């Protein structure tokens, strides 16, 4: 008796006992689940197999980045869906970042009116579900934009209609390789130049206008190459043929609606993050920077922003992740992303819920886990070092 009560009173052995009990229940629970799945699958005559991935999918996808037709396999359909998820996430993140940072700064501006407008934008946008944003934008594009025949034309090259947006498509010809080459050279040069200037400044204190030099190098070098090689890019302008436009790049109403909705919704959250990040910087930092005579722009660029960045970037990344996960709502308006292809039509056609959902979840999970790992690494790198 005393032996057992001693074991229970000893912290180490008690922890061990509790953990063994938890493990036992976990094992029991998992085996219970597996048994249930087995019994259910046996009753339905199903099995678990991933062979369905290689049989023809048999459905069409209207927006694709790699070639696809309905004789391609489910696997390829899934990849097309994954790329579509990436596409909308990419556009959405750009829109959300630009709009969000602008709004966050306007929120802090001394202008009362502008700051109030930004405030109400944020409140109205983030208190409405993202799915409603998506459906609202989709509805606006489908129902209020005109038919292709009466499309709104922007300079006769870009057309907005209820079948989507038509944008001129750049077609590359031979000689474009030179432009790419020069672009790569310009990037390498600017990285090296920035490093050189940083070292120079550390040693001597002399500052160069690194940013502007690099921007102009990256812009002009490829441009020069573009003219040298005889302008190897031509624009394919969309033209009305019959009931719809042909040629050019097509942004389907679904893609456009999804991009707007995700961008506008996430921008509200980013605005709050940017605002909180800037406000988190101690007032003394700004006052000290002003008192040593820095210009307002330098105060912002050299003192406030580098410190705010540390606060802003982790939640910003998690907003990007949220945006990517929210893009799975595309299924509600029929945009063919990963969930709509593999987890939607493929699931319904093959009846393999278990396998398709497993793949879809694993893909999302691996994306978010790898980005969180990256963030943890970044956090440990920029963490204030306590001395």
């Amino acid at each position, binding site marked *: 008796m005393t032996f057992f009560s001693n074991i229970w009173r000893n912290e180490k052995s008690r922890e061990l006992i509790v953990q063994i009990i938890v493990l036992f229940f976990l094992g029991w629970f998992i085996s219970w689940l597996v048994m249930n799945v087995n019994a259910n699958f046996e009753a339905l005559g199903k099995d678990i197999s991933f062979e369905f991935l290689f049989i023809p999918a048999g459905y069409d996808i209207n927006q694709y980045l790699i070639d696809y037709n309905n004789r391609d396999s489910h696997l390829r359909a899934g990849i097309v869906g994954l790329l579509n998820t990436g596409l909308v996430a990419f556009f959405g993140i750009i829109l959300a970042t630009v709009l969000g940072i602008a709004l966050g700064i306007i929120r802090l501006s001394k*202008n009362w009116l502008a700051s109030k407008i930004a405030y109400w934008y944020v409140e109205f946008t983030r208190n409405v579900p993202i799915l409603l944003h998506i459906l609202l934008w989709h509805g606006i594009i489908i129902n209020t934009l005109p038919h292709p025949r009466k499309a709104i034309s922007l300079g006769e090259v870009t057309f907005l209609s209820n079948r989507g947006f038509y944008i001129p498509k750049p077609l590359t010809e031979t000689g474009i390789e030179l432009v790419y080459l020069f672009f790569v050279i310009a990037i390498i040069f600017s990285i090296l130049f920035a490093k050189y200037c940083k070292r120079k400044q550390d040693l001597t204190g002399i500052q160069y206008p690194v940013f502007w030099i690099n921007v102009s190098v990256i812009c002009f070098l490829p441009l020069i190459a573009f003219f040298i090689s005889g302008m190897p890019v031509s624009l394919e302008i969309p033209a009305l043929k019959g009931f719809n436009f042909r040629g050019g790049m097509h942004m389907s109403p679904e893609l456009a609606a999804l991009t707007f909705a995700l961008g506008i919704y996430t921008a509200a959250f980013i605005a709050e993050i940017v605002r909180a990040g800037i406000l988190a910087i101690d007032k003394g930092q700004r006052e000290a920077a002003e008192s040593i005579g820095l210009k307002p722009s330098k105060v912002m660029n050299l003192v406030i922003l580098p410190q705010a960045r540390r606060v802003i970037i982790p939640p910003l990344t998690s907003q990007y992740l949220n945006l990517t996960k929210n893009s799975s709502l595309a299924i509600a308006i029929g945009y063919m992303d990963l969930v709509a292809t593999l987890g939607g039509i493929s699931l319904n056609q093959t009846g393999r819920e278990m396998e398709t959902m497993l793949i879809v979840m694993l893909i999302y*999970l691996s994306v978010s886990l790898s980005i969180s790992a990256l963030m943890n690494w970044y956090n440990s790198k920029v963490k204030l070092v306590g001395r």
Partner: protein
Amino acid sequence: MSEKTYKPGNYPDLPPPPGTVGVYGWIKQNLFSSISNSLLTIISVVLLYYLIDGIIGWFFLDAVFDADSKIACRKIDNGACWAVITRRVGQFVYGFYPETERWRIDITFLTMFVAFAPLLYPDIPKRKWLLYFSVFYPFFAFVLIMGGYFGLQKIEYSLFGGFMLTVILGVCGIVCSLPLGILLALGRQSNLTVVRTLSVCFIEFMRGVPLITLLFVASSMLNYFLPPGTNFSILVRVIIMFTFFSAAYIAEVIRGGIQAIPKGQYEAADALGMNYWQKTRFITLPQALKISIPGIVNTFIGLYKDTTLVVVIGLLDPLGIGRAALADTKWNGLSTETYLFVALFFFVSCFAMSRYSLWLENKLNTDKK
């Protein structure tokens, strides 16, 4: 220039310089302090003018509030056609709940505020008595909504819909996910390796996948994991998924709160000889929960907004009702009106929640008094 001389201590109080006080001063300081600032003001005013002009015209002045169809609407005026809402307002609120039984929903909804009051406002008079009602309320609400007892007609889950469904899903999810989230947060901070690993896996999995895939699992796969023949309502399955999903987020918020507590607090608790549960109950949680209120309420708002996702698996929340209305040829194409109406409902409820969290935060903030 005449300079008066005053005896020391007899200087009169001079008025503030002109242009720094009053309406004029305020305008000058807040709207036209510099050239760029004035430009921003002018742009804002122009933007606001067009926005307000357009909104008032479309929403109210040119709007039609009752008509038989979209075409009839357009014949009357060319603004918003709210008839799509007004003709189906019952469905938007109650779904397909039988019309004669709708008073039960009304009573449940109104008494919900009574049940929540003592939890939300700690200073309310007669709090103790109201708390008894809060404990009793879930059973009361269940019986009243579902029926089947005390001579009340039994109502099928499939008839639930509209804002009522949103509130049911949201409230159930919120109430169930807070305790689970606290347990997960404690599990993640635990010394026991097995418990910690389990909590981390659960939290990271739930946060890593989109909610919609979890809802698909709930609607089409959950039955595979249960003994053959078990079948329970889709509504319960969805609530379970919502609970798991937001519990994972709440756990992370609370973990942040736990980590923000100074180490000295734990050391003091240890020095007093408290055991783990006493430490958790009296030291960790009161402080951690207080810090994490804004984050928790944000998660709740997120959960409440996410209830709209159930439309994808075929439940008739306000969005589902709206889409059904739009599928009717009479109302085809009135999506803007329908979705804006639903958006307004969500805005009002979520905005109220965020205001409440601000109020509570200020009330509990003891260090800045």
